[in-house]
Each structure stands twice: as structure tokens, then as C-alpha cells.
């Protein structure tokens, strides 16, 4: 992966220092503005805030921890380079997830070229560690939040197509608006509505299947 246009990046970047910050609750906008001026601390703060979401999205989409690791690196390297092009500085996460979506597509193409399929296990072995939910068995929450149900949810998600899994996660997990999902996926708003609706319907059928 080549990275052009990073000429201003400092050659010496000191190791992060453990400092007590009083701006942890500040919106992304403040850090984005500083990171655009190559403020290393601001970039690290943005990284810390969003690395979990980006890594999780890539992990779910690519279904491979190694690919998710490499993809996350690539997302933040590109983000550093392209930060000046970010229009809405308060919506950094959708923008990062858009880059992640492109990176995942490139990863698919790369694996396809190598005629080696990306690991797409039926079940995620590292699915929920432990969810201690003591809920009423009759509620949908119980069905979907129990530990066993979490494993089933992982299986069902794994059986969705890549695109449907992606839109469902962008909406359900990351809370992106329909318009933002349309931008991330490169689709029309109408297609996003249809695909999310279909993905939900398919997921419910798959959940019933894996529960049997």
C-alpha cells in the first residue's frame, strides 16, 4: 500500500505520554481541526476514540482478525492524509467508516486476485465473551441478548451477504443515518432503505434457522 502526500508528517514522532486530559468530552470537531495542522496529540485522540468502531466494522465485514488489523491501519493512514477533505468535522466516524468500506472492498478484490477466499467462518469463534443478561425470557431482549443468542446472531450475520451485513451494522451498531449509509456504500437513499429492510428480514429468518 502506497501513501502519497504525507510530506508534512514529522519524521520524529515521540512516544505517547500518559497525560491527564481535560478535553475528553470535547467533540471530534476540536480534534479534527488540530489534527489537520498535523497535531499528533489530536490525531492520537481521534484514533483512540474511533479505532474500536473501525476495527469492529472491518472485523465484521471481513470476518478475519488479521485483515481487520491491516485494514484498520490503512483506514487511519488514509484518514491522516485526507483529513483536510473532511467536510462535516462533527461526523468523523461515518467518514472513517466510509474509508473502511473502501478498504474492505479492496481487501476483497485483493483476496479474489490471489484466488484465496477471505476466511468466512459460519460462526465467529470470538463472538460474545460473556453477556450476563438476566432478562425476562419472554422479551425480545432476552432472545437477542443472551450469550447463546449472541453466538447465533454472529452466525446469522455471517450468512448475510457482505453488503447487507455492512448496511445492517452501519445502521444498527454504529447508528449511521440513512443518508450517511448511502454515502458510505455509494448507493441511492432508496436502495439503502430497501437493503436495510431486506437485511433485517433475512437476519430474522437466519436467526430462526440457527436457533433450531
Amino acid at each position, binding site marked *: 500500500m502506497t*501513501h*502519497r*502526500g*504525507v*510530506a*508534512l*508528517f*514529522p*519524521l520524529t*514522532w515521540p512516544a*505517547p505520554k500518559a497525560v491527564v486530559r481535560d478535553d475528553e468530552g470535547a467533540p471530534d470537531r476540536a480534534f479534527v481541526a488540530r489534527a489537520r495542522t498535523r497535531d499528533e496529540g489530536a490525531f*492520537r485522540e481521534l*484514533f*483512540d476514540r474511533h*479505532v*474500536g*468502531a473501525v*476495527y*469492529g466494522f472491518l*472485523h465484521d465485514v471481513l470476518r478475519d*482478525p488479521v485483515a*481487520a*488489523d491491516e485494514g*484498520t*491501519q490503512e483506514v*487511519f*493512514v488514509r484518514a*491522516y492524509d485526507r483529513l483536510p477533505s473532511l467536510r462535516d468535522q462533527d461526523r468523523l466516524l461515518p467518514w472513517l467508516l466510509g474509508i473502511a468500506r473502501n478498504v474492505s472492498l479492496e481487501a476483497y478484490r485483493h483476496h479474489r486476485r490471489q484466488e484465496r477466499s477471505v476466511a468466512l467462518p459460519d460462526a465467529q469463534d*470470538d*463472538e*460474545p*465473551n*460473556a*453477556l450476563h*443478561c438476566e432478562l425476562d425470557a419472554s*422479551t*425480545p*431482549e432476552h*432472545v*437477542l*441478548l443472551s450469550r447463546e*443468542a*449472541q453466538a447465533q*446472531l*454472529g452466525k446469522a450475520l455471517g450468512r448475510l451477504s457482505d453488503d447487507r451485513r455492512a448496511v*445492517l*451494522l452501519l*445502521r*444498527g*451498531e454504529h*447508528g449511521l*443515518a*440513512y443518508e450517511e449509509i448511502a454515502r458510505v456504500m455509494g448507493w441511492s437513499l432508496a436502495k439503502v*432503505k430497501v437493503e*436495510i*429492510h431486506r437485511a*433485517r428480514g433475512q*437476519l*430474522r429468518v437466519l436467526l430462526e434457522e440457527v436457533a433450531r
Partner: protein
Amino acid sequence: MKCPAPMELDQFVQGELSAKSSMSVHLHLSTCATCSAEVATLSAERRALVARARSRQPPPPNLLWKVELTLRQASRDVSRPSSRWSLAPLVMTAMAALLFFALLPARPVQDDSQLLTASVSSPLTIHESRETESFTRMPNSDREISATEASFAACLKATPCSGGPCINLCGN
């Protein structure tokens, strides 16, 4: 009231609707079991996906270090000239050298024997080279002419011409 579209119910669950629209959906839910069930399921799905995300293994701890390393490497690559341009100074130096030699004023050309003379060092080869020089160089001054003639005369005296081609280059 007509049942809201699936997207509207979804936006209701996510809290994205305006206060007015939200109130309208809320009122509808109190009268429609189907939509109420759908909202409950949507809410459960969202909770399940978020809970699943929270229970997921965290990203590797060295990710930031790797990103910084990549950026530093990219920075070095940009500051360093590419391989194509790194040849440019070499080519320009070679061209300058060619131009320099092409424009040099013409110098008298030394013959091979002089070059040979300059490269030898033993007394024997120096003596031989002097003899060779005496045969190959054309005399320039009167003194050199008389010296050459004296040399030929001495040579003829030692080995007179015998009718055949003269080995002393006397023209006989």
C-alpha cells in the same frame, strides 16, 4: 392513522424523528399491535448489535504504533527522491563531462612511441625506445638532421648495403 413505513419506525427507535413525528408514531403504537411488535424487535436488534460490539475483542494494542510507523515511513519516502529522479544528477554529471571534453582546445597528439616511452622504466627499454624514436620521428631542426645523418652514416659503416633492400632505410 396509517402504519408508518419501516424506515420511519427505525428512525423512531433510533430517536431520529422530530418531536412532532415521534409523538405521532407513539400515538400510533398505542393502537397498533403489529407496529408495536416491530418497534420492540427493532429495539432488541439494535441493543443486541451494540451489546455484541461491546463484547467484541478490542483492537490489538499496537495498532497506533503501526499506523505511526507507516506514516513515518511514508514521510521518509516522500522526502527522499524516487529512484527515477535519483539518476538525474548522475546523468547530468556525465553530460557535463562529455561537453567539457568536447569543448577542450585541440592539443598536439603524441605518437604511440612517445606514449610507450613514457610508460617504460627499465634502462634497457629506455635505450630501445630511444632507438625506435630515432627511426620513427621526423627530424625538425638542423641539429637533429645532422645528428640523424651521422647516425645513418655510422650504421652504414657497420653494415654496408648489399644490393637488396637497405635495412638502414637509406633509400638504396
